[in-house]
């Protein structure tokens, strides 16, 4: 029996198709670039940030200075947005108001996140009594009318106890203390899901402690939804500040809050609509920009949206 000749092995190089390595953020960025509304929103926000930064060092006129021209003067080359009921330059005050908006919006988003993320992580990760306790607090907090509590907080902290001067900080604190639950609840849900995932199990088996699991594995993987939630918190905070100031309960005059500016001009709508239009348009555009960007980020971070 003839012995079978050995099969010649071709000299081939094994090749593997390695997928393109993308991080969470780069993946999100890739998809958000395809979302035009989100890009417009982002562009508006960048303009807002630039205007806010410029207003820290320069405005055409001091935002507090009255009688730079006749009261109620409509827009003119010297004052492109006109003058208000106290003869203040509205363009300057819109610029100053941008800074307030940025401070309130971003400050609130940060504090809301600082409160909500740790509580959500703890509740979702440890479950059991910790989750029950934190969820109970969250539910209780949801049952309290947030606007009313925020108004009371502003009054108590600033006017009654004089702990914090009436200003951006007290508005941010009042807002954050009444709106942290959304982030906490979201993060709790993320933590509940992520703690069961294989990579967390693997890390646990490798001896990782709870802190490391939370900070290095669960939190980074929940970051997308958190960013989206924080983005939506910004317009809510801006609107809250504008609302308080419109009612005369927000920032003290002559702080150029857009809400206060709208309030100042509201009674003169009949003959000087520019006073109320300028801040309300600025406010509307800003709110829309943050909402467009938030929607875009939500889509970008959502795995189900991947194609």
């Amino acid at each position: 029996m003839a012995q079978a000749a050995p099969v010649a092995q071709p000299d081939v190089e094994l090749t593997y198709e390695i997928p393109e390595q993308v991080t969470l953020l780069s993946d999100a960025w890739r998809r958000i670039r395809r979302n035009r509304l989100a890009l417009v929103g982002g562009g508006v926000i960048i303009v807002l940030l630039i205007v806010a930064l410029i207003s820290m060092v320069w405005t055409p006129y001091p935002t507090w200075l009255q009688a730079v021209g006749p009261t109620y003067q409509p827009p003119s080359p010297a004052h492109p947005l006109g003058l208000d009921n106290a003869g203040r330059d509205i363009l300057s005050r819109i610029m100053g108001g941008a800074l307030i908006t940025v401070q309130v919006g971003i400050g609130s988003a940060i504090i809301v996140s600082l409160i909500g993320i740790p509580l959500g992580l703890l509740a979702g990760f440890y479950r059991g009594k910790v989750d029950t306790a934190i969820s109970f607090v969250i539910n209780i907090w949801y049952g309290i009318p947030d606007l009313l509590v925020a108004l009371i907080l502003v009054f108590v902290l600033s006017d009654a106890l004089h702990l914090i001067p009436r200003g951006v900080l007290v508005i941010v604190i009042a807002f954050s203390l009444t709106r942290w639950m959304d982030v906490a609840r979201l993060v709790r849900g993320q933590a509940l899901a992520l703690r069961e995932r294989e990579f967390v199990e693997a890390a646990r088996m490798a001896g990782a402690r709870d802190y490391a699991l939370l900070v290095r594995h669960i939190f980074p993987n929940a970051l997308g939804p958190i960013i989206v939630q924080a983005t939506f918190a910004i317009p809510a905070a801006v609107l809250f500040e504008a609302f308080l100031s419109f009612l005369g309960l927000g920032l003290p005059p002559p702080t150029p809050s857009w809400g206060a500016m709208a309030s100042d001009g509201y009674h003169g709508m009949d003959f000087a609509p520019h006073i109320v239009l300028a801040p309300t348009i600025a406010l509307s555009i800003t709110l829309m920009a943050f909402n467009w960007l938030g929607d875009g980020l939500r889509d970008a971070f959502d795995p189900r949206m991947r194609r």
Partner: protein
Amino acid sequence: MVAACGGGGGNNSSNLAADQTLSFPMVDDVGNTDPAHMSAAVDIDIFRNSYSGLYKFDDQLNEVPDIATGAPTVSTDGLTYTYKIKQNVKFWNGDPVKADDFIFSWNRAAAIQGDYASLLQPVQGYDDVAAGKATQMTGLKKVDDYTFSATLTAPAGYWYTENALWTLWVVDQKVVLAAGKATDSTWADNPATAVGTGQFKMTARTPKQSLDFAPVPNWYGGSTGTITKVHIEIVADQKAQLTKYESGGYSLIGFANQSLTPEDVIRYNSDSQLKKQLTLQPSARTSWIGFNFCTGKAQPTKSCTTSSVFAGDAGKPLREAFSLAIDRDQLIDIACSKGTACVKATGGVITKGLKGYLGDNTDPWAKFDKAQAQQLLQSAGGAAKVGNLTYTYNANAQNKAVCDNLASQWKANLGVTVQCASTDRASFFNARTKCAYPIFRHSWGADYDHPQDWFDFLFVTDAGSSGSCYSNPQIDSMEKDANQKPLSNSLDTYKAMNKILVDNCVTGNLFYGIQQYLVHPYVQGAGGNALYDNYWADVKILQHS
């Protein structure tokens, strides 16, 4: 400015509308319906049509007889005033008005101790009645049914002027006593028992909603005019008031010391057609910056707790600097609806048009001089001397606008940052009485046209409404002397006192008030004098579509 006083005149009955209902809104309901309790302008302006007294003020603020037959007879020592009252005067329920009613009414007002009970303080025995030790002032004596006298503890030249004020209006003692104790006020809330001597009587009242009045049939004084009904609605929203006015729902807006929103005034004033409906009447009110004069605990007056940078001679340059740094034209333009709500004060603290006014441009600190203001501030130690300063006011739209403008001007012209702080009216007045504010909003609406009304309540040592704890023995002495004399003999002294206030920049005088009236062209005779005296009998409603 247009003075809108007196009757419409010149219109025969054929021009009159069939419906002679006078209607107007008020932001707040009346607070007190009993003359002995009244202190708010709203109450007084409404009920002066239902009650009356010995005297009243005419459109030029002259004191003229009302129930009295003429001016009182004054004894040579200036202590005893004898009044004769008209014999045909009746309350609307038919009860005749006699000397006993006046004595009862005045004793009652002293016993009740309402906000203005001190008007009766000059009368002998007032202190005992006020303290509850007696029920009748010993100084009041009935001479006969239609004559009585008031004997004072000391000569008081202002007493005659005070005779025309609401606290001294006559009430029907039969009605009051039938309803309860002399000091009870329930009778005054009930239209059936709110009995007065005025041309109109209250016919209905729904608290916080409406009041209705009707002319008194067969009023003792004769005609009550053409108005057959007065309907007053309580509408807190000034925009809603104006909307209803513009749809013909109200005859006018402005009675009872009501005002319009700044934007509405500007709108009406800037439209040639609408402007015809707007009447601007100078009012007897001055607004100023109050400076704190405390130099330490109980110094110079008992209410002081801490020292103020504005106090005394040392603080004078600062007071002057803060006053000179204000461009009042700008202030009036911005805070007074382009000058429709006030005019700048350049003649001292007593309002232009009142006795004691110093004359236009006599206040050197009421001009705008930025350079001199800065120089004075530097001489006083600069902005650092002032430190963190807060200007406090009771919350309302005009006070806020004033403070915002002052803060803007002080920052621009002096480089001093002043915070504006508002508080509710009650808290503000409570704290101001204790001289708690270093710099604050102050104003005074004259109760009557006599300088004593300003000095006694504002500028003598421990004056009840001072707010600044100002004390000047020279003013005290001059005031004591002037108060004892008839105004014809004391006016120069009062003016000299006013000059002392101006020279020392005791007040940073800002503006004098204007009362706004919005009146349909078919409503004639609406308006009043500088003391807001509006008489409905002067009003006529002409035919209109």
